Structure formats: structure tokens, C-alpha cells
């Protein structure tokens, strides 16, 4: 029977194609690229806002993956400061597009209430922004899933997790991470790091810790590590090109500075969020 259709198939394949088809295809591709760029700019714009807040309160932002629980600096032996990292807001969302487990922290016990408020407000705003964006993305994704041939009953809601972890609390300094994670077809995560000098009620930067030449110091040490195992990191155009102005970092339990990169920033996803311990 199939052979009988050969002539019809030929006719079908010979439908004249308009000359401007290529332009139309390009327009479709460009529409997408423009939007992608717009989304990126939006992100850059947001990080500019974040960066300006950093200058105001000299604070650091970063990335990490570890799971965490409510922790207080008080509980760590040998620490006498009264500043606490506490769970401020904790709730769950379970609907047809999102399953979220939210645990947003706050700092308590600062001498300067202004600084305390500033940090807490910043954490709140950032996490609420991510959560809202995540919910919107989940909704769009569900629509796209159905439109691109998925079945309603096969749809799995997006998983969103917001949590935090205390990285270290040594002398008059605490370092912690606030982590946002979402997972669908691919996963996305973002973590913000805060390292605070409790004596001065001040968010610390790498420059505060390592001095003026901090960039050179860090870049040199990271380059050495990268050269030892080149296969684990991107090379050339996509590879490491020096730390950014607001490079993510935290202080670990051994009182070492740990510089952290976003997933995919300098290495394939399989390498996770690369961390480098920096010698002072």
C-alpha cells in the first residue's frame, strides 16, 4: 500500500516554499535571543542593585550546596558572642506546579540594629524574589510541558528549597550561606554568603581579609589548582578568567578563606560548585 502513496508523497514534498522562509526562521530565533538577552540583563541589573548594597554595607555574596539546619553561633564551643543565626521564616508550599520547602534565616543580637536589619531585609528580599521567580517559571514550564507534548498526569511539580548553613563562627566573626535551589528538567541554584565581623558589625569582603592585592593572590592560587586538573574545568573562552568584584566566599571551620564559584561558571555541571581554599 505504501508504494501507492509515493506519488502523493512527492507532491506533498513539493509544496512551494516562500522565499522569505529563511527570514521568518531567523526572526523566530532572534526573538528568542532577544528575550534571553533581556533576561540576562535583568539578572545583571539585579546584581548591580546587589552590588550597590554591598558597597553600602560591605557585604559578600556566594554559592554553596550543603544542607543545613537551624544553627546558632552560640552553640559552637568557644564562641562567646551573642549573635545568633536563627530560622526566621519557615513554611511549605504544595500545589500543582510547585513543591517548596522554605526556611529563611535571620541574624540576631547585633549591636547595631541598622546593620542587622539591613542584612535580614536583604536576605528576605533576595529569597522572596527567587521564590516568586521560581513560581512563575514553574507555571510557565508546566504550560510549555503540555504544549510540547507532555501529559498532565506525567507532570512533576518544580522542587524549590530555601535553606541556610552556618559555615563557621570563629572569634568575633561568623560566616554563613543562604541557599536557593530549584529542580525541574534541569536544576538551578543560587547561594548567598555572608561573613560578618561582629566586633565592628560589618560585612567582610575579600579585600578586608586579604588586603589590596587580594585579586592577584586569589587568581594566582586558583590558576595553580586549575592547571593540576584541567579536565575538570572549562578551558579557553568559557574558562576561568579571574575572580569577579563580588566573588563568593566564606570562612570554613579551619578559619580558611574558601572562594566559591557558581555551577557552570568555570566548570561543567558535573564539577558542581567549585571551591578553592585560599592561603593568606
Amino acid at each position, binding site marked *: 500500500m505504501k508504494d501507492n502513496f509515493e506519488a*502523493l*508523497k512527492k507532491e*506533498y514534498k513539493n509544496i512551494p516554499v516562500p522565499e522569505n522562509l529563511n527570514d521568518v*526562521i531567523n526572526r523566530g*530565533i532572534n526573538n528568542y535571543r532577544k528575550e534571553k538577552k533581556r533576561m540576562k540583563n535583568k539578572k545583571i541589573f539585579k546584581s548591580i542593585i546587589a552590588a550597590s548594597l554591598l558597597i553600602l554595607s560591605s557585604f559578600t555574596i556566594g554559592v554553596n550546596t550543603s544542607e543545613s539546619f537551624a544553627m546558632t553561633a552560640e552553640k559552637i564551643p568557644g564562641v562567646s558572642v551573642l549573635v545568633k543565626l536563627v530560622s526566621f521564616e519557615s513554611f511549605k508550599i504544595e500545589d500543582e506546579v510547585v513543591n517548596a520547602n522554605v526556611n529563611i534565616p535571620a541574624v540576631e543580637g547585633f549591636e547595631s540594629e541598622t546593620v542587622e536589619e539591613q542584612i535580614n531585609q536583604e536576605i528576605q528580599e533576595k529569597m522572596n524574589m527567587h521564590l516568586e521567580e521560581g513560581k512563575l517559571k514553574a507555571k510557565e514550564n508546566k504550560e*510549555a510541558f503540555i504544549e510540547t507534548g507532555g501529559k498532565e498526569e506525567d507532570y512533576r511539580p518544580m522542587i524549590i528549597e530555601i535553606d541556610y548553613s552556618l559555615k563557621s563562627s570563629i572569634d568575633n566573626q561568623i560566616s554563613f550561606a543562604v541557599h536557593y535551589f530549584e529542580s525541574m*528538567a534541569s536544576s538551578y541554584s543560587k547561594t548567598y554568603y555572608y561573613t560578618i565581623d561582629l566586633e565592628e558589625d560589618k560585612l567582610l569582603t575579600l579585600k578586608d581579609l586579604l588586603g589590596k592585592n587580594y585579586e592577584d593572590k586569589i587568581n594566582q592560587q586558583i590558576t595553580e589548582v586549575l592547571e593540576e586538573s584541567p579536565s575538570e574545568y572549562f578551558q579557553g573562552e568559557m574558562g576561568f578568567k579571574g575572580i569577579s568584584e563580588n566573588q563568593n566566599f566564606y570562612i570554613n571551620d579551619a578559619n580558611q578563606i574558601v572562594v566559591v564559584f557558581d555551577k557552570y561558571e568555570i566548570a561543567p555541571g558535573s564539577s558542581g560548585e567549585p571551591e578553592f581554599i585560599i592561603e593568606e
Partner: protein
Amino acid sequence: MTIENEVVIEEFIRNHQKDLYRFAYSYTKNSNDALDIVQESVYKALKYSNALKEQDKVKTWLFTIIRNTSMTFFKKRNKEVPLSVVKEKSKAEKISKAERIYLKDLVQSLDEASQELIKLRFYEDLQFNEMAKVLSVNINTVKTRFYKVLEEVKENY
């Protein structure tokens, strides 16, 4: 490192423009509408490139998007959606055997859903599992419907 979906999709689109257009045209039967649908589908495919689960299924996946976009397009225009359920035709509607000299006429006398099955199977050379994807139905449903249509054609040919 694996190639990103986005790259695979864009390359396929560029190399198979005509196939995509033709497939859209087979629904719209109108060049301008087909171009609109292609543009919209290209955009959607890139935007939701995450939804592509297996890269070697990119053709089927794009066809699915074009088909769904065409359906949405008809709905928005308040036109009758041409491919709903297979409609049983009454005997009276059937054209007499003598008039059906050419297979083409015969195919065109079928309802839209049956024509679509023939198009996907014989003109686009899709497998049953691929047809099931594009039509968003179960593979057994596709097989049953397709053989029924084939029987009908054979009977009258």
C-alpha cells in the same frame, strides 16, 4: 561535555526549514499562516529547549510543537479545529467508487484526522511511536486508528 539542547534544536531548524514549513502548511493550507506558525514554533522550541528529553527525537518534538501551535492558532481564530476526533462518516457522505479514480481524491475525501495519519506515516515517514508523540495519544490508539484508515482506503481503492 554534551551539546546543549538549544544548539541541537537551532541546528535542526536551520537545516530543515522546508520540512518545518511544509508541516505547518499541511495544517494551515495557507502560506502566511504557515509562516506565522513556523516563527512562533521556532521561538517556543528554543525557549523551552529543556522540554526536549532526547536529542535524537528533535524532529518529532518540533513537529509536535508545530502541530500544537497550529491547533492553538485555529482555536484563537475561532476556526473549527480541523483535527479533533475521528468522525464517522455517514454512507451518504461517501463518494461512490467510480468517482474515486485517483488515490488523491480518495485521501482528500477522508476526514482530517485520517488524512493526518496518512500524512505522518506515508509522507513524513514517522514510526508509530513518533506519531503517538506528535498526536499526543497512546501508541495503540495510533495503530488502531491508522489500520482502520488504511482498511478504508484499501476497500475503496
